[in-house]
């Protein structure tokens, strides 16, 4: 298993993701977006956080329309795990690979803070290490993270909400919702369940000394997908 951590101009969490994978012995490398063959040859893809193309137009809008996204789409169709974190999540939404859009935070500010997430489904590569209802701590760092779904009913009915923002007790209250996301949604999976978009940064919760290592559970799903590539 080799994970391609796809880097665009302005991506800045790429090396952090590679390092976090290192903690759980998953082989990962940063791949520049123009090296499409390296992306195609990888077994899985992570779209890391950052500010690709300076967040021009809308966060993720430019990166979503680069040719390498066709390779990412092929991985999704072949069943390989594909995870978009923060700006990566925005790119996945902008490309239409997962549904919905990210609007500016309700506070109209950049927010960098710890959040509690409730695991809403374990039927995905990214949450199979957890139990449904587990409350985990992973930080956010974004200005445009207010998730607006195209079809909330479809997400809920198909059990495609991955995480919800909750308080420490696991309740999805308004106060626990950092950015005004619809239905406290912090992460979703696509129709095929092997592609996920989440605003919180699992790589920033990869060491106890960072305050939490709950993010490693999200990344560990890649390890279990050894033979998933078609």
């Amino acid at each position, binding site marked *: 298993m080799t994970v391609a951590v796809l880097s665009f101009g302005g991506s800045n969490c790429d090396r952090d993701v590679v390092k976090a994978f290192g903690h759980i012995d998953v082989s990962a490398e940063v791949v520049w977006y123009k090296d499409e063959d390296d992306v195609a040859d990888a077994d899985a893809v992570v779209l890391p956080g950052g500010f690709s193309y300076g967040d021009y*137009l809308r966060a993720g809008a430019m990166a979503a329309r680069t040719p390498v996204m066709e390779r990412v789409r092929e991985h999704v169709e072949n069943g390989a795990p594909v995870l978009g974190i923060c700006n990566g999540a925005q790119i996945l939404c902008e490309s239409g690979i997962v549904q919905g859009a990210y609007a500016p935070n309700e506070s109209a500010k950049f927010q960098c803070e710890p959040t509690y997430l409730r695991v809403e489904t374990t039927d995905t590569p990214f949450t199979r290490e957890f139990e449904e209802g587990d409350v985990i701590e992973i930080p956010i760092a974004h200005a445009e993270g*207010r998730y607006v779904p195209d079809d909330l009913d479809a997400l809920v009915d198909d059990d495609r909400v991955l995480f919800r923002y909750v308080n420490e007790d696991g309740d999805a209250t308004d106060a626990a919702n950092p950015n005004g996301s619809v239905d406290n949604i912090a992460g979703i999976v696509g129709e095929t369940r092997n592609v996920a978009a989440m605003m919180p940064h699992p790589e920033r919760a990869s060491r106890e000394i960072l305050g939490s290592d709950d993010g490693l559970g999200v990344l560990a799903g890649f390890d279990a997908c050894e033979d998933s590539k078609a």
Partner: protein
Amino acid sequence: MTYEAVVRVTLKEGVLDPEAKTIRKSLERLGFDIDDLHTADEYVVEFDAENKETAREEAEEMCEALLANPTIHDYTVEVR
């Protein structure tokens, strides 16, 4: 013939506009009486087209392909 399309992208009715809310508060603090305030992004695109109608169609395609996000945005196109 060269046309100029003015594309105006706004948040859909019902999608919260925190930037507008903040600006409105500031204007009110300055003593202005505000009924409503919306933000919009405007793009001015120059390009060649056969006629005004095809220019409009192409500008609308640009909106669908990139300039607007249909989940949260409405847009208008004015060709001149």
